[in-house]
């Protein structure tokens, strides 16, 4: 997943978390980057017609941006599910975030063929819990 798609996904999740435009600070926290980096990338995404930015309020996805964010979140969900259910990784959220930049969409699509993902994905993604609400996670180690 490329950097732009990671930003679009973060904006989508921040909009859901805040029930409104995604604030720069929230995006910086979600992405683990500086607010200046967020502003620079949001500006680029705005130029591409993927994001609308309102001063002092934050960033909102356009229809095209929303479509790409959905796809990016589906890819992320595939990686989380694969890690949790196939490789049985306990820290699947952290590892999915670390791996998403290296896993290409075509690879995620192949991994998707051996996992159980709902048709409504990514609507069932729980932004507060950072994973699908239907994901059965491996038991915590004792």
């Amino acid at each position, binding site marked *: 997943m490329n950097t732009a798609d990671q930003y679009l996904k973060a904006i989508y999740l921040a909009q859901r978390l805040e029930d409104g435009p995604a604030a720069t600070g929230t995006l910086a926290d*979600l992405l*683990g980057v500086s607010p200046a980096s967020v502003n620079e990338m949001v500006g680029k995404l705005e130029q591409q017609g993927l994001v609308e930015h309102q001063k002092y309020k934050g960033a909102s996805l356009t229809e095209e941006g929303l479509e790409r964010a959905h796809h990016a979140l589906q890819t992320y969900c595939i990686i989380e599910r694969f890690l949790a259910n*196939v490789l049985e990784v306990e820290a699947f959220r952290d590892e999915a975030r670390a791996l998403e930049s*290296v*896993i290409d969409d075509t*690879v995620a699509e*192949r*991994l998707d063929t*051996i996992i159980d993902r709902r048709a409504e994905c990514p609507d069932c993604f729980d932004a507060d819990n950072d994973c699908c609400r239907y994901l059965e996670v491996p038991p915590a180690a004792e």
Partner: protein
Amino acid sequence: MSLGQRVSSDHQLTRLLQIGIVLEEVVESRAAHPLESLPADEREAIDAEVRTLLEDAAAESAEHRGRLETLVDDLDAETVPYEEINALVDARYGPPEDTDGVLYDQLCNEETAYKFYDDLIEAIEASETDFSVDRERVLETLYAIRAEEKEGVQEVTDVMERRA
């Protein structure tokens, strides 16, 4: 969230190699069982050329898996057994409808594997991390596998073009 495409730890390298092993297991499983999954009339229609292609693909994936497993073993980690992935493929993966479907599926698998190794090599090359396994050995292994995946894509493409 990591925004750089680089492999920054032993742990991350291990995880990516484990993913590579699963991709090989999917290729192996799909190449080994198309005959069983096809309808009877389509099964008989698979000619010697396609059978050989699939047998070679399954054997090559098993061999790639073995090379990756050696690296993962040296990183003190485990891999998902082939039987487990084979069962998931059987349970979740829709069977191809005909010989063209088998070939197209095989092409997608080979292309995906090539793309995966290409990205992984790039991410390792972009990293300055000292892994506990020899970096050059990892890269040499991945270069060789990537080259064979590229040949695999070409072989499937050639067969598809001859049949078109």
